[in-house]
């Protein structure tokens, strides 16, 4: 996780170049350029339908690009196979299933990007335990995820991504529908990860408690990058870009806008 910065340190961990993608016949990405440098935390902002989720899902190979390039750690996505370096936190809705599963079981599945088809070792189990502790759910490890609140469930998905010890976190709306205590846990986890050398790309509706961590904010609109805010602007300007990106009037900085 905390590898020394070598010559490869100059290569961005994420690079999306002139990316086009469509869902069905509807073009969703219409030429997006996006990079995340090593150690950087980038927020991806925009209204519903602006292409945020499609952009991150194209990064992890779940939405094929119709044209353009995707690179992870300098390797074209097609040839990228080192998925243990990537911690993916999808939108929370995906994990509901018919059979109960404990927190530990769900988090353990995040370790499979390292262990693949071999049985788990003591080192794998220790990594799973550590990930559960990091999100503050050690006392709930043997509980069914169906019994958790929305915020706790989000923390499980984050622990699942941490279990592999990733160098890059890709999170799709990790704050949506999450209580304030869990938002704070997420901010603390992200701070620790970045301090240890990790990078992050986070889809957000609002910066919330992550505000001080964000190095750059990229605002999407209708599948193109409308604006990039640097660190100082991010804190000052991006209070509510989803609804009023260029509104001079102070936008209400109320709770969730989901």
């Amino acid at each position: 996780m905390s590898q020394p910065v070598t010559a490869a340190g100059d290569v961005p961990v994420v690079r999306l170049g002139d990316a086009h993608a469509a869902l069905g016949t509807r073009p969703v990405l219409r030429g997006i350029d996006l990079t995340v440098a090593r150690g950087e935390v980038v927020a991806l902002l925009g209204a519903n339908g602006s292409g945020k989720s499609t952009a991150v899902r194209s990064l992890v190979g779940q939405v094929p690009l119709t044209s353009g390039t995707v690179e992870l750690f300098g390797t074209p996505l097609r040839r990228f196979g080192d998925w243990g370096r990537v911690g993916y936190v999808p939108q929370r809705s995906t994990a509901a299933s018919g059979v109960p599963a404990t927190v530990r079981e769900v988090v353990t599945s995040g370790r499979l990007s390292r262990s693949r088809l071999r049985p788990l070792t003591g080192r794998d189990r220790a990594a799973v335990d550590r990930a559960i502790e990091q999100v503050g759910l050690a006392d709930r490890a043997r509980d069914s995820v169906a019994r958790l609140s929305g915020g706790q469930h989000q923390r499980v998905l984050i622990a699942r991504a941490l279990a592999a010890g990733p160098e890059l976190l890709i999170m799709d709306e990790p704050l949506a529908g999450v209580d304030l205590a869990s938002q704070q846990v997420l901010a603390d986890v992200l701070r620790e990860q970045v301090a240890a050398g990790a990078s992050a790309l986070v889809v957000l509706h609002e910066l919330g408690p992550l505000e001080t961590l964000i190095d750059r904010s990229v605002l999407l609109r209708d599948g193109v990058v409308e604006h990039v805010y640097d660190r100082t602007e991010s804190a000052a300007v991006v209070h509510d870009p989803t609804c009023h990106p260029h509104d001079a009037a102070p936008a209400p900085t109320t709770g969730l806008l989901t």
Partner: protein
Amino acid sequence: MNILEFLQPPFMQRALLAALLVGVSAPAVGVYLVQRRQAIMGDGIGHVALTGVALGFLLNTSPVWMAVLVAVLGAIGMELIRSYGKTRGDIALAMLFYGGMAGGVMIINLAPGGSTANLNTYLFGAITLVSQEDLVVISCLSVFVLLTMLGLRRQFFAISQDEEFAMVSGLPVRVLNLLLAVTAAVTVTVAMRVVGLLLVSALMVIPVAAAQQATRGFAATLGLAMVFAAFSTVSGTVFSYYGDVPPGASIVLIAIALFALVTVAAAPLARRAARGGGGGRASKEEGDTWHNGRSEATAGSRRQA
């Protein structure tokens, strides 16, 4: 009279061993199908396997091995329809189901001296007719099913619980999906001699449905489902010996009775857990948020940009 008198006849020894093997194998596959909400898949494979049985008669080869072959091909077809098929996948699956059943009936009538009566033991099971040779086949296939399903349980759990995440983990999701389909097909043909093709799916689904009401985790559900299913198959076989009733139907009815018992017993447990223990820390408000999140999921918010 010896209380274990049912263990004396060799045909009962074979029947009970077959029942036990099928009892532990069926839910080991079924738990993943239930988790992916594909509980009906076992039924579909059963319908397709009937064509295989009939082909076995027509070609004068082993109906069981032909059933394995055709069921495996059918299951692979269903998996491909599931993973690549878009909007009309359900219709395509339905066609496969009906085609398998109709094909079986048609082919058996083409076989010399064949009639639908030949299919009865496969449709409804004939555990007391299990031969030494059948038992060898059932044992080999059960070992394959158990080794695959238990050995790769974390990987199969991952692809069943969140397929997209499993892909992003770099797991060979397509291969694992096909392996699951093949294993399900093998299980159906193994269980066919015990409960019959029409009731096969019951053994894959009902014990899992019963177990998950009393458990908090996946491994616990799997283990308890295997216990429930093995209890159902063995006790159903014994019951049919003394009661002179069809074993397949007895097994399935016992499994349903177990399900009902667990449902009744688990309701107060779940209430207590919600009040005090496990979920106690989640405030009501938080709990509601989570449920809202889930209903959004069903509304298809996942697919949006």
